[in-house]
């Protein structure tokens, strides 16, 4: 029987190195043990949904970039899918492939950050993050070559892509994809068998299968709990049905599984990229000429994709004008982070940090 003490409150965040943005955890501690966690969000509430109502369909795209800014092109894709569904626009073949290529690149980019930051939270003094960021830089280089920005690309448009990729793009992408498995292998060597890392993550922060389904978790968090759910397979959007890939799942649902699912997902992404490079038509238009100020018919549409963090949905209501009547965003991070409290109670502060890190949230998406 431990000595009875009064639990005390500790604010982790909003400005705290491990909160990946401005997230606040009001933790109730007894010694170092967590009695209660209260996630407080809203420190990055920027009113994106409201702003979207004042902008035209095209002008919303830069806003969606700023949701999940780690993998911003996936947001564009989800939004564009929803609007294309609303307006009944068919996307050209080459654009579909480009979309696949970029969303898989974004998945890689996101997982590099997710794993790197997670290891940083485990206390690995930035080295894994730095190695992974090197790869992320390569992806960023590719994107910059295509659309001139390094982070918030504003590249997809309703009806395709804003412009075709430059000629240098394909060779560079090929080289990148060819080298990628080697680097992923290196990261596995760096950390996967590290005893300290295993001791820190195995069995920590278990999210049971049932609970994961109940809270509506998605993405790697859900799959690590052993649920084989991937929208790319279950409801293939775009042209994902043309590719052959596996959906890695974990079995326990602890932090290690979440890490390891992400690791294996990266290999699958590389596989998809390889196939896409092989199949992409060499020529062709990339944009179904949609005017910048276009008016989709009144109605509503829901587009969802398997974003790197999970199921990202956009619900767009149009009233026939140039601006959407309502845009609702269904972010995966928000659903996933609700599991935090159940996972963390009874663990220590250090565990809370890595559990939070293993969920991989982005605050732009949670607070919107």
């Amino acid at each position, binding site marked *: 029987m431990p000595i009875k003490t009064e639990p005390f409150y500790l604010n982790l965040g909003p400005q705290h190195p491990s909160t990946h943005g401005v997230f606040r955890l009001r933790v109730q501690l007894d010694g170092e043990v967590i009695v209660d966690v209260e996630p407080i969000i809203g420190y990055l509430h*920027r009113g994106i949904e409201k702003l979207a109502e004042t902008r035209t369909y095209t002008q919303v795209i830069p806003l969606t970039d700023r949701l999940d800014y780690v993998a911003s092109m996936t947001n564009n894709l989800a939004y564009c899918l929803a609007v294309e569904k609303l307006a009944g626009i068919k996307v050209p073949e080459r654009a579909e492939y480009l979309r696949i290529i970029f969303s898989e690149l974004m998945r890689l980019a996101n997982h590099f950050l997710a794993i790197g930051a997670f290891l940083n939270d485990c206390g690995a003094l930035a080295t894994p993050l730095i190695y992974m960021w090197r790869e992320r830089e390569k992806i960023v280089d590719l994107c910059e070559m295509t659309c001139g920005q390094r982070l918030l690309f504003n590249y997809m448009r309703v009806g395709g892509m804003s412009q075709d990729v430059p000629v240098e793009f394909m060779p560079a992408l090929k080289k990148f994809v060819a080298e990628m498995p080697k680097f992923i292998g290196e990261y596995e060597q760096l950390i996967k068998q590290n005893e300290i890392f295993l001791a820190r993550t195995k069995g920590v922060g278990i999210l049971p299968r049932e609970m994961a389904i109940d809270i509506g978790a998605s993405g790697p968090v859900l799959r690590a709990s052993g649920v084989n759910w991937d929208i790319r397979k279950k409801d293939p959007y775009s042209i994902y049905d043309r590719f052959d890939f596996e959906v890695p799942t974990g079995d326990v649902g602890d932090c290690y599984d979440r890490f390891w699912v992400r690791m294996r997902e990266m290999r699958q992404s590389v596989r998809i990229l390889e196939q896409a490079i092989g199949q992409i038509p060499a020529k062709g238009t990339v944009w179904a000429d949609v005017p910048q100020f276009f008016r989709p018919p009144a109605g509503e549409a829901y587009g969802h994709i398997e974003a790197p963090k999970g199921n990202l949905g956009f619900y767009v209501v149009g009233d026939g004008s140039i601006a959407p009547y309502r845009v609702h965003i269904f972010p995966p991070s928000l659903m996933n982070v609700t599991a935090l409290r159940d996972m963390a109670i009874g663990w220590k502060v250090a565990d809370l940090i890595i559990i939070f890190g293993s969920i991989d949230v982005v605050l732009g998406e949670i607070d919107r």
Partner: protein
Amino acid sequence: MEIVRPEVNTPQEADAVEGAYINSLIADSTSAIPDPDRWIDEAVHRNVFLTTTDTILAWGRQRSIFPMLFATACCGMEVISMSVSRFDLSRFGMDVVRFSPRQADVMIIAGTITWKMALATRMIYDQMAEPKWVVAMGACAISGGTFRESYSVTPGVNRIMPVDVYIPGCPPKPEAVIFGINRLHAKIIKGTMDDPMLSKP
């Protein structure tokens, strides 16, 4: 416009106090705080006696700035890009990232500051030890950026604290930020030479 808060004992009290102070902060920040830039355009007038000391002081201050990463949103990603291997901020002696405001010298505000966050931002700024500088990185920090019209976003951090360097961009490229930091270095040199007290509102 300094925020002093009473002691709180329960989370409920803390929330109530926070809400009240956010409202008063919004009410207080209707106009921008003037930029601390008096000496920028003037030629440095070197006082004969103080030159050497000042040079040394400025050298020390300029060469080892401990940044306090205040990464709230997308711009934070570029801050990471800048500090990892490709652009390696540590070349300027800035690799000692301190997360405690007591030890940091420059607050790089990277990202959107909402009103809810502004309170914490201002508090951390207050808690930093002098001499301190603020770099507003990205459109959001400078002016609210694309979210300026939004009800919840601060229209520029220069409403709540004086800003030394503005780095436009959304997000600025890492080089742009390093350029901004170099500008800050130059400012520190000039500022120290001109006015070692660097008194700020």
